[in-house]
């Protein structure tokens, strides 16, 4: 009985100490970046992908004679209750000059008011929610704007692949809904037709009935606004149902995992990506080579985005100094930062986003992503 009580009291005391002095030891001269993102929970894989790319970028910055950068990664589980506490922690930790994250809009946008009032830049590298940067002038994002990507995808499907009647499956989240709405609008602008749209919940795995419903609207092609894991499952069921229509998908399906999870069924999927490892651009090749050498696996789009973010921070610190205000003002001024995703990154100070993502048109052929050869699909 005594032992148990002491244990409880001990845990509580330890915890209080951790809460009050919640900072880890860091080298005094390093620049510290606060990262709020999921390391556990449903979205944990994205946090671990960020980490891999951050580590690589920090090594490269240092090797190139840039500033020494460290990051403090706080696990939020993409849960708003935790991201707001992390925000308070970061805002009141003078060593932190910029914050990156969170992953989901639910968690990021709940924390935005705290960063805005604390005058600490919240850099939402994955926050495509159109209202994210409207949270205040301290919210910046390098996420691909869906307003740019969706017309591109529509053009690929309609003019490139010759598909005129499209059925859309979209993730029923802020991201998927935004993507779907922009896509539908782009299709109408181009004079083609969307014959049906169906939303699905994260984690859903059974699409057979949804696909039958879409099939009966007689589409000539399927459009997926989804991430790679869902896209692979959907593609398999499309083929199981004996549907032969071509599938085109948004760039977020681009991942080596799509091929692993989808098998034969993903052969022939058309997609576009702002990051493609076989892209001959030198910045892409340098990144892919370095990533492969360090981790012995191919990077995907999330890796590329996170790598760009840390390189950007290195450039900001170098040009504008390691202060919060320097970085805030620097984001509006900095020009042509080398970027894997954009080629070079420049922010529009009005929208606080980056314009001009490059989209490579791809097709999966013989279990590999390849550049699209311009051939229209035969059935459809």
């Amino acid at each position, binding site marked *: 009985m005594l032992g148990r009580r002491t244990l409880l009291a001990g845990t509580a005391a330890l*915890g209080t100490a951790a809460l009050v002095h919640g900072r880890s030891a860091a080298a005094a001269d390093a620049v510290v970046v606060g990262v709020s993102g999921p390391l556990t929970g449903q979205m944990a894989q994205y946090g671990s992908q960020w980490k891999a790319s951050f580590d690589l970028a920090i090594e490269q910055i240092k090797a190139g004679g840039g500033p020494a950068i460290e990051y403090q990664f706080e696990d939020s589980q993409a849960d*708003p209750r935790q991201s707001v506490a992390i925000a308070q922690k970061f805002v009141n930790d003078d060593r932190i000059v910029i914050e990156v994250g969170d992953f989901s809009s639910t968690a990021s946008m709940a924390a935005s008011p705290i960063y805005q009032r604390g005058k600490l830049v919240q850099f939402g590298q994955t926050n495509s929610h159109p209202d994210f940067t409207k949270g205040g002038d301290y919210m910046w994002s390098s996420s691909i704007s869906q307003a740019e990507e969706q017309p591109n995808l529509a053009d690929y499907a309609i003019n490139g692949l010759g598909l005129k009647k499209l059925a859309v499956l979209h993730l029923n989240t*802020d991201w998927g809904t935004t993507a779907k709405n922009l896509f539908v609008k782009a299709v109408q602008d181009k004079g083609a037709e969307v014959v049906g749209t169906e939303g699905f919940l994260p984690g859903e795995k059974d699409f057979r009935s949804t696909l*039958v419903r879409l099939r009966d609207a007689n589409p000539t092609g399927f459009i997926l606004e989804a991430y790679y894991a869902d896209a692979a499952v959907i593609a398999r069921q499309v083929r199981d149902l004996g549907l032969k229509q071509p599938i085109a998908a948004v760039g977020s399906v681009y991942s080596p995992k799509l091929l692993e999870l989808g098998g034969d069924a993903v052969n022939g999927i058309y997609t576009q990506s702002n990051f493609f490892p076989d892209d001959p651009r030198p910045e892409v090749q340098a990144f892919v080579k370095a990533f492969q050498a360090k981790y012995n696996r191919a990077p995907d789009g999330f890796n590329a985005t996170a790598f760009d973010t840390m390189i950007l921070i290195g450039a900001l610190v170098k040009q504008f100094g390691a202060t919060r205000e320097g970085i805030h003002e620097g984001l509006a001024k900095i020009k042509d930062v080398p970027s894997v995703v954009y080629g070079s990154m420049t922010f529009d100070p009005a929208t606080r986003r980056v314009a001009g993502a490059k989209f490579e048109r791809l097709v999966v052929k013989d279990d590999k992503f390849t550049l699209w050869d311009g051939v229209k699909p035969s059935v459809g």
Partner: protein
Amino acid sequence: MLGPWLDYTVNGLIIGNIYALLAVGLALIFGVANLINFAHGSVYTVGAYIGWASITYLHTPLPVTLLLVVAGCALLGIAIERLGLRPLHGRSRIAPLLATIGISLVLDQLVQLLGSPDPRALPSQLPDVRFQIGNGTIGTLDLLIAGIGIGSATLLYVFLRHTKLGWAVRATAQDQDAARQMGVDTDRINLTVFAIASALGGVSGVLVGMYYNSIDPNMSFDATLKGVVAMMIGGLGNVPGAIGGGLLLGLTESYGIALFGSSYRNLFAFALLILILVLAPNGLFRWRRDLPPEPLTGTFIAPSRPVRIPRSVLAGITVAAALLGLAPLPYLLQTLTNGLLTALLALSLTLVAGTVGQVSLGQAALLAIGGYASGLLALDLGWPVDVSVLAAGFITAALGTLVVYPAFRMRGHYVAIATLGIGQIVALVILNWTGLTRGAMGLTAIPPPSIAGVELTSVRSVYWLSLALVVAMALLQTRLLAAHLGRAWRSIREDEVAARSYGVDANRYKALAFAFGGFGAGVGGAVTAHLYSYIDYQTFSAQLSIVALTMVILGGLGNVPGAILGAVVLTGFPELFRAAAEYRMLAYGVVLLLLIRYRPQGLLGTV
């Protein structure tokens, strides 16, 4: 027009097949242990990963893979029973239920740590011969899943009806103590049942993983949820009924999609659940009331002598907490604010679950209703925030009571499952009622909390606001509990039949409890919404309902200071373990299990 309907039917049966396999394992365990095993989905996930590991590293053929999965999961089942549940024997009925939630948390985290959070491919090892049915095709795996589902249900049925060990299992299910007096080794029976059910769960995991060629550590929650719904439809603990329940659930979802589109699928699944619970609480396949009646709800709660904290100490803690607001510790204050806002939820839950005995697994829906009500009033109608928060409290009280109304005539486990379903329905309505709630986009730019036009933007002021709300609600609740109303509530918990016969209108008193709790939780959700400025349907998720229940049990069911303590401690918990990064959820699960094991009546005792 038969064409598409044939396809929808086939598709419904295919997914129903999978639900059925999950439900059989759950039904078996419920049949013997009277326990809804919330760890079943986690065992299913572990099974999938054992299969993946044995194929990837040992290159085993399918029969060997399945054998390894059966062996591994049977051992896991034995460990769960022996180490996690048997020590709780003779304790309150809620303790094992919570233990399975804790075990599930620990298993999911272990899988994630060992197997990486990214989904993995699990290629089917069967030759993929496909058969044309209607316009679609089904493969050999579909047939194998159906075969194993129906085969295991039949085998179990025969085993339970016609073997000596089966009789012993059924005797144990009916009355554990009587069976023991008759010389049945009930411990061994429980072990056997957990081993069989877990092996079945593991096999389902590996087959479903192969079916989708995709496994990930998060597949467990959905599996548990759908399995439980399928089991309830078939009848609690009814093994052959579970097959029927699974297929019916699959068909309902499929026809629901056919008629209204895919975003309504789960709405249909949970609506079916509520309908069955209200109209045929013994499941669809039993017309006679031959299940042992649910134990009276009172026995759900561990009787204990609550820790009496002198008023002066409570007043002292309140003053100290208020003074803490002056300290320059924003991170601590933010964490405590989160804890206090959750405490409003915990107070409502400790009232309905602890005092009235209606264990709710959907309580977070009240926060969602409150948050959306206040957010929309402020955004769309331009109401001042203090008025909208107050209005949200009343709206939640009314709406919350109304949506839980179908659960009033139920007891015990049925209430828990019904409220779980109702919570899901509320979230899905929020997601789909785009015209009002803006659907998946959520509410953005919600104005910050304010009182009489003064915006509360500093951490300190929001902390004091939350503290004041919690103290006010706690005082009110304590006052009510000491009055006639409190006695009426407790009488319903102890023995509803006796309470009714003394003229206590049970439904009216339950409604009062939900309304009072709904007001507090609604205000809590509203303040949270204004604090975050952005909410969507995931802000107040089903997991939060389960966390809330653990808070209430940690503090002691029905115990007002206990609920606040539980909320603050458990909200602070993930923050305390922050240094452990990836391992902290694991630590959280382990500590939860230890608490259930060594202090089931909670820190401050049940009231």
